[in-house]
């Protein structure tokens, strides 16, 4: 790997790692596990560095695709803990998460009750900030399928959240 290649990978990882950590934290049952998974994502990114796209948005998509695969593997098996991630694991474990007002719980519960195929789409768009086209790519869907699924998910959520939405409007 040339020094220039190395710098390109390093820059992409540094700029995306906070979002990758957040993405992983939101999808694991033990929050600290996100640190180990991030370590694995970074290792895989270095391993595959020749595939790193040149354009920053594509780099981000590429890294999230790796993260999605790592997460899928994590769900299939118990992860080995990597010593590389130990310090970050401790950081995640000892830092309290940002505040979590109770009113958000009802919305989150409704999202989590969605059908699998709709839930991840909504999470990618609203929790991780992807566009619907980007979310479709990460999920291996074509854009029109993603749009119809997303529309169906919104209808389900609207029905489930009728009361919270009414209260919010009154407030």
């Amino acid at each position, binding site marked *: 790997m040339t020094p220039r290649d190395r710098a390109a990978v390093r820059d992409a990882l540094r700029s995306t*790692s906070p979002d990758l950590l957040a993405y992983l934290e939101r999808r694991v049952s033990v929050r600290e596990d996100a640190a180990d998974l991030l*370590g694995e994502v970074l290792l895989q990114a270095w391993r595959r560095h020749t595939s790193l796209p040149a354009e920053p948005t594509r780099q981000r998509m590429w890294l999230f695709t790796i993260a999605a695969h790592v997460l899928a593997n994590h769900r299939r098996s118990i992860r080995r803990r990597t010593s590389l991630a130990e310090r970050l694991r401790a950081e995640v474990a000892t830092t309290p*998460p940002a505040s979590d007002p109770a009113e958000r719980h009802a919305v989150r519960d409704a999202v989590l009750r969605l059908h699998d195929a709709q839930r991840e789409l909504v999470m990618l768009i609203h929790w991780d900030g992807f566009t619907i086209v980007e979310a479709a790519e990460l999920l291996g869907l074509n854009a029109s399928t993603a749009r119809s699924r997303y529309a169906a998910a919104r209808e389900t959520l609207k029905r489930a*959240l009728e009361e919270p939405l009414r209260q919010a409007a009154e407030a």
Partner: protein
Amino acid sequence: MDLDQLLDESAPPVTPPTPHLERELHALVAATEPENRRWPRRVTVAAGVAAGVMGLGAAATAAGVLPGWPSFSTSSGQTCTVEVWAEELAPGDGEPVSATFTEAERAATLTAARAYLADFDYAAVDRAQAIAWWQDEERRVRAAQDDPAERQPRLTGDDLEVTAVSRWVIDRLRSHLAGQGLDVRAVMVGTSTTGCML
């Protein structure tokens, strides 16, 4: 408040971004860089032969990376994609080397290495022989490491298998180049694997 806003704000809380977290993330990025991982450096057998270590190299279809081993099934049943590749030696790559090489020597070595690897018959490698050869080398390296606490761990299982075979390929490459009056240290040679956990 509309549905979009409610959904946007429903994300579970995560570790807040702080300067300390940023430092830890940068440290993790640095710690995962191939050249910073510990044992690849220690087992490197020659300058210019980079971390020829399975699982730590590049996954490779980009220009300059040779097609290698499209599919490798380990004894435990994992299937990996394994490749051995040669690239130009860039400043800072590989181990420190006392010999210097002219541009013409580097170019000739790279051409020869790529040609050899492109035609290499991976299926002909005797896996047991490669493992025995690797373990001899591993013993020699470990014996030279005086402090038991710092001694590199013995490889086992799939890690041993893919490492041994890939190092065997690199060793054959070294011999082939030497037969042509070329020195493998004039190029960057490494191995990669994807698709399996080592």
